């Protein structure tokens, strides 16, 4: 949850540091994203058995992580941004896990 950071002192009314990411980083990330896209497509045409979906998702997640960290500047953001991000993914996680807990155990009847 978005637990407020109790140690955060008085609200700073100072200028935030304007972190400037260099274009080189942006280009690099862009390149990696394109490569990963190609990899997803390539991998999809290879039979990995039951691993196809997990691999596709893993690649998608790495791509998302790159976008979040570099394009969205989270790497250089405040702790609060991280907390917010983690909290929201956790909430989606709760939705997935607890609902699946129902669907996946419906057939089990060994009580």
């Amino acid at each position, binding site marked *: 949850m978005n637990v407020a950071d109790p140690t955060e002192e008085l609200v700073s009314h100072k*200028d935030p540091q304007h972190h400037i990411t260099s274009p080189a980083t942006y280009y690099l*990330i*862009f390149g990696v994203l394109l490569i990963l896209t190609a990899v997803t*497509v390539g991998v999809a045409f290879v039979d990995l058995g039951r691993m196809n979906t997990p691999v596709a998702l893993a690649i998608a997640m790495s791509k998302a992580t790159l*976008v979040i960290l570099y*394009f969205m500047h989270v790497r250089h953001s405040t702790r609060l941004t991280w907390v917010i991000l983690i909290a929201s993914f956790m909430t989606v996680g709760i939705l997935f896990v607890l609902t*699946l807990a129902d669907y996946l155990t419906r057939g089990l009847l060994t009580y």
Partner: protein
Amino acid sequence: MSDTQPHHPALKHHFEDLGQQHEASTLGMWAFLTTEIMFFGPLFFAYALYRSQYSEAFVEASHHQNWKLGVTNTAVLIFSSLTVAMSVYFAQKNRHKALVVALALTLVLGIAFLGIKAIEYHEHFEEGLFPGSHFTYKSPLAPRVQMFFVLYFVMTGLHAVHMIVGIGIFTWLLIRARRKEFSLEYYGPVEVSGLYWHFVDIVWIFLFPLLYLVGRH
């Protein structure tokens, strides 16, 4: 109103200074993005659930996707994310011309994405894959294939709506950028709109393999 510092025209009256205003707007956008995540979350969940239950049907359905257009669109969006990232950079560097170009490029790419999407929709429609009374697809798995297409249209449709909103926002940014409103001191709107655009990109990054590449091998 405290007039202790020289007044930047963009400073709103209820903020102490531009720093506070900038922080507030970035935090605001992040908070907004959490709601966006929760907005798409249930759709992804529904997809995961039905995909795990009706996997053959989903494979069959996915084969009706034009994955080449899908890849193209993925590349288009990633490229637009780059231009958005660069526009933040140009704004920070006070490079007004470059900023305008980057924003315009973003717009072009966004519209291109929607155009390609429209072609795909059209194809599906022709094939009778649009759910509801137009769904004429024949197969023993037809009902579950239809389930796939309901999810497909809802998810990509919602994504497209976000793209349209994004295009609106970036048009507005473009207008302001041409008036040279942004600078290292004040580039919050570019940054914040960029966050939104990247989020929309991320959604697509997940949608692409899930909708286009199921059981391709």
